[in-house]
């Protein structure tokens, strides 16, 4: 079973390997028997999502950078995973999509980075709300932990709820505590 780098709990300060129970299913591929856990494209979800969810499958949706996250807003509570794709690590659209899912649409489930997922973006992805990663560069959870927490301070508030410098300076904790 493939492995994911995953945060060791929502507020944890380290990352660990986690078994990945989900299978990515291509648009022209059958989902397999046994009502397995699947990750499918947005268009496949729009076609088959209701039926598969009704059958009792766990369903995740994989969004390409050009797919609007707004279209998923009402389905978020039914989804087990939202996977956002980085066709190249330099393509930062999924960072905005992640921020929107977490901050505007209140998505609290697994948010997974797929595609060209490299540790040089670990802190950006983590800060924007990603909590699981399919690394494409051979990174380990230990390396991921170093990359994410290398910076002792940050300047912006983001989905990871770290206190930004402007709050640390005036000793006002974030609203969430």
């Amino acid at each position, binding site marked *: 079973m493939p492995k994911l780098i995953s945060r060791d709990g929502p507020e944890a300060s380290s990352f660990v390997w986690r078994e990945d129970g989900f299978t990515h299913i291509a648009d022209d591929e059958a989902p397999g028997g046994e009502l397995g856990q699947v990750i499918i494209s947005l268009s496949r979800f729009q076609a088959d999502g209701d039926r598969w969810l009704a059958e009792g499958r766990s369903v995740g949706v994989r969004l390409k950078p050009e797919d609007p996250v707004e279209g998923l807003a009402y389905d978020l509570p039914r989804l087990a995973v939202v996977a956002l794709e980085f066709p190249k690590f330099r393509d930062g659209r999924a*960072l*905005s999509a992640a921020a929107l899912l977490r901050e505007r649409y209140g998505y609290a489930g697994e948010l997974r980075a797929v595609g060209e997922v490299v540790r040089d973006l670990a802190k950006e992805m983590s800060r924007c709300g990603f909590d699981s990663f399919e690394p494409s560069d051979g990174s380990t959870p230990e390396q991921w932990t170093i990359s994410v927490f290398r910076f002792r301070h940050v300047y912006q508030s983001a989905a990871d709820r770290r206190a930004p410098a402007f709050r640390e300076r005036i000793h006002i904790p974030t609203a969430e505590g």
Partner: protein
Amino acid sequence: MYRYDAIDRSVIQDRSAEFRDQVERRLSGALTEEHFKPLRLMNGLYLQLHAYMLRVAIPYGALSSDQLRGLARIGRIYDKGYGHFTTRQNLQFNWIRLEQTPDILDALAEVDLHAIQTSGNCIRNTTSDPYAGATAEEVDDPRVWCEAIRQWSTLHPEFSYLPRKFKIAVTAAPQDRTAAKVHDIGLVLRRDRDGQLGFEVMVGGGMGRTPYLGTTIREHLPVQSLLSYLSAILRVYNRHGRRDNIFKARVKILVAALGAGEFARQVEAEWTTMDRVAVDLPDVELARIRGAFSYVRFVDASPVSSSLEAARRADPTLGRFVRNNVKPHKIAGHAIVNISLKTPGEVPGDCSSDQMDAIANLADQYGYGEIRVTHEQNLVLPHVKLDDLAAVHAGLKAAGLACPNVGLASDIIACPGLDYCSLANTRAIPVAQSIAQRFSMPDVAESVGELKIKISGCINACGHHHVGHIGILGVDKKGEEFFQLTLGGSGAEDASLGDVLGPAVAYDQVTPAVDALVQAYLRERRGAERFLDTYRRVGLTPFKAAVYAEAH
């Protein structure tokens, strides 16, 4: 000026450590060049024709004397004893070794400097008015807002992998010394009728192969909302800017494609649904930043300096220096001193380590320890007492820095061009040197008056040729260096893009052509008209006739 606290310092130290790790991975082969290149660019490291080039950020063009000395030291240890001030108020070292770069970053961090986001598809160093805090023209100190932007944009998790680079300018004076209208975002601080401070927000300006002037999408944004509004613009751009074609990826193309009205609508929709409290700086933080910029306790000085007047009578070169390089200060008895890095024969923007030290010492002795960089590749001592001007002039003269040509024909902007840059089609520096020599006689330059000549060695327009009164663009024509001339551009408050004069001219014909343009101007000008005013009144025809009669 703003001094870094422990938090600011930790960020540049941690960034330096991160880059050291990335360099080690590249040298060991763990990272390919394709993977490493965008990472090194995010830290201002280019591979140029002869060596690596490191672009050091000078946030909004403001330097302390200690920082300038730090740059001088790095120039001596790690380069060939000089640096190059750029059209974006930064400093470039031209002879850098990759394996030494982490040590250079540590040395920069010792004086609170860094190379963060000086290249790459991220938010770059903010351009601001080099006279900020010194000119009586401004309605507020733009550096307060630049520092707010610096912190917000530094390692922004969402906006570090944009479709393309992103440049912001902030000015608070009616005279625009930032070229705000050719930035991705130009911010002009104004007070409304009720006295409330706000920003006019212009988007979609830029140069390169598709030049545009920015369009106003909001007339008066309350200043407290600056960062959330910028976030809204960046989010719309990050999501919808083109990524399929590098030449169409700047925000100007998105604004043009959507129309400014629709772009503004999308920004407002994003902004109104955003959690602004989480993004905008609280008043107490803004007050902290503002306090850092109001530390200068100006010494009382007489509005007229008898010693200066006496010195001017004794030394006509001082008189000329004061006439061209010295500008009025908001405090009586003080002045703003421009230091030209354009002495004819020298490389525009270049400054030796010895000269940096000399300027830092003058700043300490006579200028409250502050130095500014202009986007026209000159330096500024923003606060000098009139009584000290003669001493400053003498000090600059001793360092070879007293050229009295600011704003004149020999004060030319030029990109590094094919002498250094791997993107260039043609050289730019020797073209600038040749034109500057033509106008090297101070009387000649002064009789011509304000003339902004700007030279780019390729279409990327780092030399700002689109907004030169005379713009010069190097093109490759059948394997030879040729130069296209444009007239009537301006990067100031009366911004405009230049018009193409006619067919490009050969390398050795550029200076004669510029000379012919100036002669035509002198024939046509009325009263105190500048070159730009005359061109705007009479149009291309007499200039065309002058150049193509004489060059062919």
